[in-house]
Structure formats: C-alpha cells, structure tokens
C-alpha cells in the first residue's frame, strides 16, 4: 500500500470539503480560546481539576454505577443495562413495542451512532427521525456525521439546499435561515406525532440520578415535551459524582465545544413529568450501555473514558483538519477517536491500529482537552501495541527498517558503515530507487558527517583525566 489509509482518504478529499472542514475547525478553535481566556485568568487549572474529577469517577465506577441506579429507581426511572449495541437496540425496540409505538424522534447521541440504532429500528418497521439539524441532514443524505459537535462540518449550504429540494422540503434555497426555518416547520409536526423521544446524556449525577442534556437547538427539549415515553441511552462513563461538579463541567463543555459561555439549553432530567404538567413523557427509561467500555476501563488507556465529547481536540488537530472526520472510519473521529475507536473495536484492534499513527504528536489535543486527557501518551501506547500485534494496517507505508535494525544492533557492522558512509556522496543519483530520486530532485545529498563519534569519544577520555570543575564547565 502506498499510503496509510487515513492519508489515502485525505488525498481523495475535494478542495471544497477540505475548505469546509478547515474553516469549521478553525472557527471552533478560535471561539474556544476566546471564551476560555476572556472568562478565566487560568483556565488550565479548571481543565486539570475536571480531569481529576473524571479520573476519580471512572476509577470508582464500581461504586458509582449501583449508586446512580438506586437514585434513578427512587426517582421513578426504569433502568436497563446493555452489554453491547445489539442489546441496547433490543431494549429500545422492546420498550417501543410495549407502548405500541411506531415513531421515534431522537436527539443527537453518539451512543446511538455507535450501536446503529436507526438502522435497527427501521428494519423492524419503526420510524427513527433525527431532529438535530445537522443529524437530520445526515439522515436524509444517508451520510455519516464527520464531527462530534458539528456533524455536517463537511457539507456546504449548496449541498444542503440540494438535499432539501430532493426531499420535498421546498424549492432550492441555500440561505441558512431558510434551511433552518424549513427544518423547524417540518420537524415540529414530527415531534408532535411521535410516540417516543430518545436522547443521550452529557452527564449523569451519581448523587441525584439526574441526567443532564446540553443542546443549542432545543430538539431534545421538544422530544421530551411532545412524546409519551423518554428513553435515554447513556454510556456508563458519563457519570459525575455530585451535582456540584456540574457547575464546572457545564462551563467547560460549552466553551470547549462551541466557544459559548453557556449552551442555549441545559436540561436536568430526573424522571417522568410531574403530575401537574400536561406535556411530556409519563415514563422515563435509562439504558446504561457498556459496548466495550468496561474493556477500555481494564486497559492502561482508561483515561480516554474521561472524554466529555466536546470536539476541541478535533478542531485543533492538524490531521483532522486535513483528513476530515470520515477518514477515521469510525463513529469517533479525531484524536479522541484515534484512541477510543481501536480500543472499542476489541478483537478488531489490529484493523484500526493505524489510527493512533494519524497524529504528529504535537500535543495540542492534550492542551485543549477540558478533562486534560494525555492523548499523545495514549497514542504512543497504542502505536506500540499495534506494532507488537503486527497490525498490517499500522505497518502500511512505513519504510522497511530491517536493514537499519541489523546495522544498529551490530557494533562492528555499524563501524564499517560509518567508515564507508562518505562514499555515498559518490553514488550516482541516476541509479537511485524512485523514492530517492524524488528526494534529490529538489535537494542535494547532505554532506556526510557520520563516523566521528568514536574518535571524539576516545579523544575526550584521553584529554579529561580529572572531572571538570563547575567554573571550567561554564568557561566551556
């Protein structure tokens, strides 16, 4: 293979898509920086604190999971557990069947993408409609989200206008205001006709059993106002220990994700509607989803479970900006995806082991992370693992290092190579292999500087019988 898969994908990206992704990530990055630095003198301390809280939480999930379950049950919530995606889908399907429900409106949840819920329900004759504007456009285009917060970062308004026209949502018009107004009009009748509203959860408080949903559009609010049943799909790592933690996390999430001081709607949902309330679900279900998370918890890369899905690492990543989210071949793109996707893949780790190599290890992802995940460290660990597992995907397009390995591990061979290395200057470029020719087309061969270390070392030993004093060293 000529390239790593992600590089291969990046070369096929059209200029328009590349520009969309670049502009979208750049503006997200700028907004984040502005929002954090104008609000706080030392935003770094907040990130580190949030990281400690999440690390504490995931290292004590065995305590917090039963605790949150008990609180939810006491709040009148029906709690379910799903070992994998299939079981989570089956829970949703069964709950819908029990209510004779055919229509679901769903807010954006990454877990539902992970478990392919929409496909599962549609195959069984149920409607499963995305209500977040971006996700709705993804759905009508039979596409996949390419960014966690901005799912259609790879599309421009003209493409969206074409899709709307095709779906009978009015004549071609690419004004974002018109596009939004049409979606508003179309979707509000869908909410009112739906039986079940599905959401994810941004946070779950172990203390009170509240789930916290954060949206700008108000689609999850509408789902939970118009339907009879609310189902929340929750990854088991979404917990925070106490309600007080939410003040910190909500401030960090909004600023890190979109550069807003606060997201438009923050919903604290702890159960079915109150007796006096005419609107909203009379029943609330929470499905705790494992789907590989306990495996990640057992791994020395468990810090990735701190992630609150803000996308700051996507926005700042030079690889993501060039390759776009689809290049990562998984639900979670960008630096977080490069760690999480291979881990969640389980036995299929070797097939995804190239993703940790999609990084220059510049460290920006760690610096922007609101929960301070040491992503570069985790990437290095996974690169090592991919190598040890002899992953073909990870090895693709890496130069053969066998000859160098032999040379570098044999002192006598190394010595000979260093002595004779100067001869390389005499090597005629016309005899070079193609890759070498490409290299020298715009460059000369470097001047040979090798082979002097041993002589220097011997000289140094001979000249330095006594250790140098501090002053002498300074004079050097």
């Amino acid at each position: 293979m000529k390239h790593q898969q992600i590089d291969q994908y990046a070369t096929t990206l059209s200029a328009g898509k590349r520009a969309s992704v670049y502009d979208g990530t750049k503006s997200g990055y700028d907004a984040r920086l502005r929002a954090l630095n104008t609000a706080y003198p030392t935003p770094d301390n907040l990130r580190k604190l949030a990281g400690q809280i999440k690390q504490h939480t995931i290292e004590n999930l065995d305590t917090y999971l039963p605790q949150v379950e008990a609180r939810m049950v006491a709040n009148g919530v029906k709690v379910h557990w799903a070992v994998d995606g299939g079981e989570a889908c089956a829970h949703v399907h069964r709950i819908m069947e029990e209510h004779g429900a055919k229509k679901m409106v769903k807010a954006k949840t990454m877990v539902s993408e992970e478990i392919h819920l929409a496909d599962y329900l549609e195959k069984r004759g149920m409607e499963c409609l995305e209500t977040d504007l971006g996700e709705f456009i993804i759905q009508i285009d039979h596409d996949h989200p390419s960014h966690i917060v901005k799912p259609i970062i790879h599309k421009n308004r003209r493409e969206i206008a074409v899709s709307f026209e095709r779906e009978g949502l009015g004549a071609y018009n690419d004004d974002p205001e018109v596009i939004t107004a049409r979606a508003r009009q179309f979707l509000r009748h869908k909410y009112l006709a739906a039986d079940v509203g599905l959401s994810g959860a941004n946070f779950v408080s172990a203390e009170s059993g509240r789930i916290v949903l954060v949206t700008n559009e108000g689609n999850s609010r509408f789902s939970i106002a118009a339907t009879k049943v609310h189902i929340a799909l929750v990854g088991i790592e979404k917990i925070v220990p106490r309600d007080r933690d939410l003040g910190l996390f909500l401030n960090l999430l909004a600023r890190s994700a979109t550069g807003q001081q606060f997201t438009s709607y923050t919903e604290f949902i702890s159960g079915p509607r109150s007796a006096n309330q005419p609107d909203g679900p009379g029943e609330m279900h929470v499905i705790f989803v494992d789907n590989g998370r306990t495996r990640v918890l057992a791994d020395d890369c468990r810090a990735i479970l701190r992630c609150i899905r803000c996308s700051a690492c996507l926005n700042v990543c030079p690889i993501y900006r060039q390759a776009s989210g689809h290049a990562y071949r998984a639900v979670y793109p960008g630096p977080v995806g490069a760690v999480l996707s291979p881990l969640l893949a389980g036995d299929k780790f070797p097939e995804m082991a190239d993703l940790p190599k999609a990084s220059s290890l510049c460290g920006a992802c760690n610096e922007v992370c609101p929960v301070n995940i040491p992503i570069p460290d985790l990437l290095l660990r996974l690169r090592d693992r991919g190598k040890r597992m002899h992953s073909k995907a990870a090895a693709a397009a890496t130069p053969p290092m066998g000859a160098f390995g032999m040379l570098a591990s044999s002192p006598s061979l190394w010595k000979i190579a260093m002595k004779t290395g100067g001869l390389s200057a005499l090597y005629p470029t016309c005899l070079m292999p193609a890759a070498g020719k490409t290299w020298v087309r715009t460059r000369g061969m470097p001047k040979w500087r090798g082979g002097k270390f041993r002589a220097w070392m011997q000289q140094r030993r001979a000249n330095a019988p006594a250790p140098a004093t501090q002053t002498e060293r300074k004079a050097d």
Partner: protein
Amino acid sequence: MTSRETILKRTADALAPLTERAQYPDFKDDIAVMPALNRSGDLWAIFCERVKLVHGTPLSGGPATLANWIREKGLKHGYCDPALLPVFGDVLTAAGCAVETVFDRSRVDEYQFGITRAEAAIAETGTLVLTDATSSSRLAALAPWTHVAVLKREQIFADVASAVAKLPADPNVIWCTGPSRTADVEGILIEGVHGPGVQVAFLME
C-alpha cells in the same frame, strides 16, 4: 447472569488491579464562576447585560409594559399560563391580543407567543430556569416563536454555582440561555431552530 451483573462484574474486575484509586479532588463550588462577576451588585442589571450577549431580551416593569411590547411586535395570538391570566389578561386584551390558557398541540403553528413563569434566573450567564412546577405547559414555553418567562427580582441567582447548589427537586429543570440556535450550516449562527427565536425575560416590578 443478567446484563446488569455482567457489566458490574466487568467494572469491578477492570478496577481490581488498581492498587490506588484517584481521589475526589478538593475544590470550591464557585471554582468556575467568572472572576469578573460582581456578585454583590444589582443582579438584574448583571442579568440584563449578560442576556443581551446571548441575544436574549430583558424587559422589566408592570403588566402594561409587557402588553405594549407584545403589541409593538405585532403579536396577536398566544398562550398565557392560567395562573398569570389575572395579571396579564386585561392588558393583553386591551392590546388587541387573544390568549388561550390551554395549549392545543394540534394548532401548534397558531401560537405566536407563550407566557409562562420562570422558576429562577442566573445573572452570570443570562439564564432563565424553567421547571415542571412553574411552567404550566412545557410546549407553550417552547413551541411559539416568542417565549416570555415571568420573573421576580428575588428569584435571581448570582452565578451558575449557586443555581446548581439549589437545583429544585423537579424532574424537568430547563436552563434557557438565550434563544434556540444552530450553527450547523457552515457555522453561520441562526436563531429559532426548534425552540423560541425570541426569548424574553420579564421582570415583574
């Protein structure tokens, strides 16, 4: 073994090898409160300043102030919380406005505005707090283009941390910070997606 038991066992097994577990860190509740906030100042004034930053609309005064604003916006028909009807009924009628006190979802497009009570507000972020207990209809506070949340001065929290500390025991606590918005299309900010395009905070004096 049930799935619950499986997941809890896997969790316990995953964590068993850890010789030490990360402690819950020590921190103050107001750690993420913006230092620039003057918490002892006039909270309504701070609220107004902050809510304008998120394109919310602050209003204060007596019932006639709201009725005038509604008339100026050309709104003719909306919803009003039955508990607020004694306050606003007459002035709204005088302003040429018809209000209903039951939200009929089959005529969702006919309501130009909804007036409901707020549970509280947060000055730091310009946020309105709605609950099941104080919203007479979730849909009426959400579906019309204009939502008016009626607020009293003593209900304003200084900051997010104090509002979190006093989260009401209500199954549906909604914090609204400005109107509904999206930037999904090319990052361009559009207001009024699924929820209100105009979010009014009305302080009753």
